[in-house]
């Protein structure tokens, strides 16, 4: 019998909201408001420019957590995190957004582990550019939560599916690496 836990979409949304709001209030001192997630689990929200950060999850359930935003909002977040001013996306901004994503997805993972069992977390990968789209190579449907901060929108999204075989026993994640298209 498969004794791995199950989790509802609402629980994933709740974990994403709670984690994101905590990271923003504690580390950034920014107020952020969760928008309405799409009614159905949606394909990954795919901005065609800006930043996309990806973190792999592995264990009895595996998948990917992601944060996507514009370059302008990335600079705003980095400026608040590091108490410095950034007007352009540079190495420091990319690193800051990677760490913000790490904290958000890490805390989502901790919340979900109560039901899904222990999962491992990869180090973040940050993609920045223009005219690209991301697609998951295998799965899947994503749970997407948009957040508003002033005029900017940021998407926090997670896709998870029960893992099979060796993958289910390993806590060392790769991630469902997206194919990246130039459009």
């Amino acid at each position, binding site marked *: 019998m498969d004794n791995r836990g199950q989790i509802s979409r609402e629980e994933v949304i709740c974990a994403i909201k709670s984690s994101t709001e905590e*990271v923003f209030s*504690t*580390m950034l001192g920014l107020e952020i408001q969760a928008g309405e997630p799409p009614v159905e689990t949606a394909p990954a929200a795919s901005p065609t420019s800006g930043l996309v950060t990806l973190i792999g999850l592995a264990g009895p359930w595996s998948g990917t957590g992601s944060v996507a935003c514009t370059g302008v909002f990335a600079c705003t977040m980095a400026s608040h995190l590091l108490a410095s001013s950034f007007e352009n996306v540079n190495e420091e901004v990319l690193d*800051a957004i990677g760490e913000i994503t790490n904290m958000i997805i*890490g805390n989502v993972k*901790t919340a979900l582990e109560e039901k899904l069992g222990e999962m491992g977390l990869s180090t973040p990968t940050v993609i920045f550019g223009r005219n690209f789209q991301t697609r998951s190579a295998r799965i899947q449907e994503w749970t997407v939560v948009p957040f508003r901060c002033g005029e900017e929108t940021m998407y926090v999204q997670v896709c998870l599916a029960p893992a099979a075989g060796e993958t289910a026993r390993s806590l060392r994640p790769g991630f469902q690496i997206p194919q990246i298209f130039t459009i």
Partner: protein
Amino acid sequence: MLDILIVDDSAAIRKILQRVLRQAEIPIGSIYEAGDGKEALETLQQRQIGLVLSDINMPNMNGLELLSHLKANDPWKNLPVVMVSTEGSQAKVLEAVQLGAAGYVRKPFNAEQIKEKLAQFF
């Protein structure tokens, strides 16, 4: 005055912790940084570090591997290591404590939490 080593693969977190420590009104000497466990060991071999703050999820050598190595080797057996990590599950905290961690701070953190956790070492 204690010299402190911050171990985290994120330069952003290293910078934030440097700032928090400098503003904490505790008698700190020098603050050193390392991007992973291996770099941390190199620094520890060269410096007299009195306290380590370490992330867990890092490339090359992660924080728990670093902690295990330190607790198994004489010069560092009694060196206090405080974990600062997004890993917040009870299982992970327990694992770190069983390996010999002197404290555990979950990310996201605020300055007060760091100061409170470090007060016992000064």
